[in-house]
């Protein structure tokens, strides 16, 4: 299991949106966006429980044929966090439930998920990349909560 945390310098990508945004896998590029192939089904599943939308209309999907589950890149907007500090826990719970459903009947495998959140007082975004089993998703929740707390204390 590994959790990588990195600061990413990008222009404001929230585009006035609230809630959660599913970003293209190549969100640092301006054109030719492609979404992880899991993104559409995850969106359909998650929209019943979360305020979630795509960054732009998906047209191309990235299909990676290794056994891991490549989850969508999820941006937690600053507005989503400020209006509901529980959003991190809820999002991690939705991902865990989705993956558990997805792998029912299959042999356990690793999942890869990227969650991005913004420190409201700066233009910086923090990208947290998780590789591991479903049970370890709590780790990403703790890291995200730390990022959010740090921002509130600054």
């Amino acid at each position, binding site marked *: 299991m590994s959790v990588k945390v990195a600061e990413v310098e990008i222009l404001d990508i929230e585009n006035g949106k609230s809630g959660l945004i599913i970003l293209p896998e190549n969100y640092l590029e301006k054109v030719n966006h492609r979404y992880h192939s899991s993104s*559409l089904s995850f969106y359909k599943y998650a929209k019943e429980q979360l305020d979630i939308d795509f960054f732009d209309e998906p047209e*191309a*999907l990235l299909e990676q*044929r*290794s*056994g891991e589950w490549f989850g969508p890149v999820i941006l937690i907007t600053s507005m989503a966090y400020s209006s509901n500090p529980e959003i991190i826990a809820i999002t991690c719970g939705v991902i865990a439930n989705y993956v558990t459903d*997805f792998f*029912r009947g299959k042999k356990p495998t690793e999942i890869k998920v990227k969650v991005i959140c913004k420190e409201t007082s700066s233009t910086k975004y923090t990208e947290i990349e998780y590789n591991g089993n479903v049970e370890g998703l709590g780790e990403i929740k703790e890291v995200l909560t730390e990022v959010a707390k740090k921002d509130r204390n600054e």
Partner: protein
Amino acid sequence: MNKRITLDEIRESYDDFIDSCQKFNYLTRSESIQREKIKECEEYIRVVKSYKSQAITDKNEDASGFLFHMQCMLNAMRSSLIVWVNVKGEKYNEAWNSLIDAQEYVEVALKIEEYDGVINMRFHLDSMENAIFPGWKLYNSPGHTETIGKCSICGKIFSKCDHIEDHIYMGRLCRRVDRKIIDVYHSALVENPKDRRCIITKHSGDGGRMIDYFTWEETGEVKDHENGKIVEGIILSLNGLDLD
């Protein structure tokens, strides 16, 4: 007036049939009887799918789901019997693909019901794999971009409906179909691929002479191997599993 058959009666008959097939799901059993059993499985699948159509017409989600479970288990049994026939005919690549088909049918069946019979079938298939095949440390895993495709349940563009991949709706597994590859980025060698049909089939030995990975016999082909070992394999496989 025709008597309507109950789900319990269908299940009882199905259990008996699966047991009768399992007795022939071994290497030493007669190939001609295995071929007969494969045909019987195909006929039984046709019957179960006709019951499922009735359950779908009746909008009976539970019955259609359980009949789909039977359909998957019968397909798993059929595919595992085909493994033996192909092994006896020295068609090892086809045998491997049939084994993966059987394992994937069991995975889908397990989404609906889990009981000793299904777990035993999964164990039997894993034992077949370990006993017959050499094992692959690495498989091919391509990365590509593709179009969204259509929903196998409703036929709409997949982004325009609410169906979710790998969920079961009225006895059918939701998949994205009619996808077109836009661009291929790479093919990596991985230990854990999405599709275990994507295997290495040949590699170069001394003097660039190609060797079949199943038999380790030289194939007669000679490749230029000055820049390193040559491997040939399957990059992408279009399986045609019966999941509707």
